[in-house]
């Protein structure tokens, strides 16, 4: 078994675009759930909008890549408004069901043949990153050292992704440590109390929904920049994985989602390589290596249960500042 090889490939995920994308989406979920108490179970939908908005903007409307990216983020704003105006008045678990259903509706709309011309239906969209890569200032070639060795194209995706993530994290950190964030946390605790103090609770919740949704769309954007866009990526499980990453790090923290995503992906990559390798050695009770690759998902589920029950504040959360108020 090539243990060093596994560690090497695992380390590569520390800077992978998918890790950055998860971190952005988990940060958005932290704004939603950790700070505003909104149970958004439709993060995959926001991410899909970011990715599809970007790809469709380029392919169907011929926009420059940065404007196409704004189309994706704008789509997330509109989705948040459509979702929020009627549902933010509903009780928490209703919001969860509405958001999960809305995200699934979006996915089915991307899957259907009716809009095949724009969405590519089951095939998804590809070959739209040309212009984005033309803006790449790095000369073609391979850079870095193992395990962080990659093409100029991938480095460009990473650099753009990390810049987006850094700006987003700084903005969220500023927001939640401001009086605005104080009101948001107050709403999480008891929105009637905040209302009785003269704050427009609905506006704050809507702002939080939009900000978190745009962060999710940024995650989808980074994913789209690094590979193809396919509705199969934006399934309900993606939302659940991002929840796991968020809760792992700590929902009511700014840096928890980042570290949570990092741990999530490093562990995913490590286990996803380790178990098949063990299976090939016949060390896993005769499981095939394909079967063994499923074990990591089982572990995600079990981990989610254990975190929520035994360490709901996450790794970095303050024990006193638990987010599970209700």
């Amino acid at each position, binding site marked *: 078994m090539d243990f060093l090889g596994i560690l090497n490939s695992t380390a590569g995920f520390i800077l992978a675009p998918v890790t950055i994308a998860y971190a952005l989406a988990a940060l958005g979920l932290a704004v939603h759930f950790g700070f505003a108490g909104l149970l958004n179970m439709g993060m995959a939908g926001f991410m899909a909008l970011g990715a599809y908005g970007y790809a469709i903007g380029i392919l169907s409307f011929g926009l420059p890549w940065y404007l196409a990216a704004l189309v994706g983020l704008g789509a997330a704003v509109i989705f948040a408004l459509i979702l929020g105006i009627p549902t933010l008045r509903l009780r928490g678990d209703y919001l969860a069901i509405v958001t999960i259903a809305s995200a699934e509706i979006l996915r089915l709309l991307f899957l259907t043949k009716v809009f095949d011309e724009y969405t590519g239906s089951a095939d998804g969209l590809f070959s739209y990153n040309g212009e984005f890569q033309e803006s790449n200032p790095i000369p073609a070639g391979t850079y870095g050292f193992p395990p962080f060795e990659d093409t100029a194209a991938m480095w460009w995706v990473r650099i753009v992704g990390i810049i987006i993530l850094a700006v987003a994290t700084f903005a969220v950190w*500023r927001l939640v440590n401001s*009086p605005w964030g104080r009101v948001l946390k107050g709403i999480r605790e008891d929105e009637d109390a905040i209302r009785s103090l*003269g704050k427009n609770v609905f506006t704050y919740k809507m702002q939080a929904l939009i900000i978190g949704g745009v962060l999710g769309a940024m995650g989808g954007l980074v994913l789209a920049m690094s590979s193809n866009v396919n509705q199969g990526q934006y399934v309900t499980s993606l939302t659940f994985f991002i929840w796991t990453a968020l809760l792992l790090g700590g929902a009511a923290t700014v840096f928890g989602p980042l570290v949570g995503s990092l741990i999530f992906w490093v562990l995913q990559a490590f286990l996803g390589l380790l178990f098949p390798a063990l299976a090939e050695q016949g060390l896993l009770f005769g499981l095939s290596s394909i079967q063994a690759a499923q074990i990591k998902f089982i572990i995600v589920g079990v981990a989610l249960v254990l975190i929520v029950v035994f360490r709901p504040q996450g790794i970095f959360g303050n024990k*006193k500042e638990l987010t599970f108020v209700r």
Partner: protein
Amino acid sequence: MSGNATPSSTPVKSTGLHIGDAAPGVAKKDPILVAHGIKRQFGGLTAVDVAHVEIPRNAITALIGPNGAGKTTFFNLLTGFDQPNEGDWSFDGKSLKGVPSFKVARMGLIRTFQLTKALGLLTVMDNMKLGNTGQRGEKLLSSLIPALWKKQDAEIEVKAMDLLTRFKLDAKHEDFAASLSGGQRKLLEMARALMTDPTLVMLDEPMAGVNPALTQSLLDHILDLKTQGMTVLFVEHDMHMVRHIADWVIVMAEGKVVAEGAPDEVMKNPAVIDAYLGSHQDVDLGAVTGRITLPETK
């Protein structure tokens, strides 16, 4: 009888608040809040059916009545937390019909809740700061630039610390509100309400669940509000507290206002005794309904 529930000094009562005989719906010389024809039904049940009531300005008015009389529902209706099926009501001459609760609060009508709503996972200081209105840093875009709100926030902190000192919570300003006792939370909630600089303070059972050691200071604080020019309307079960600090008493039963008047007179009103006790007259209401010794928790 217990001396716990009396203020430290004899309060100065406001008198001559009404015009004509003290009957339900009597007009006031200077009403701050006027409600007319308020009706609220849940299913087939009428919870509130108030024909007319006026709350006098710069006085302490008590709203009393047996359980299920509709006092809290009436509070919710007046403050926009619930909408009546019909009726009009106005605050300082401005109609409040259809005005959402947060706008009611911004007009200077602040309420507290029967079950305290201290924000447990925020610090005491953050709880206080939330009460302040017109904060620049609470706007989304300016919150991103601390230079725009830091100075105002520091001023708010001074004001909050001042109030916390008055309410003897200053030592706890860094603690999470969840760590406070039930009575301290009531105090915090009241102090937080004062951060908004209200003109009318509506307190829903301010004494419920408060440690006897704290009741005295709570009563003093309520009397203070009047001296500072505010108007107080409060729901209470404790008749001794009502007698000692209220200038005017409104009695509700089965959703209706059944009596109004100065505290000492209204207690003798047969309609009130009926409402509380049926036909058992000549019973000191305080001995029956008041909590002679107040329980630590609800």
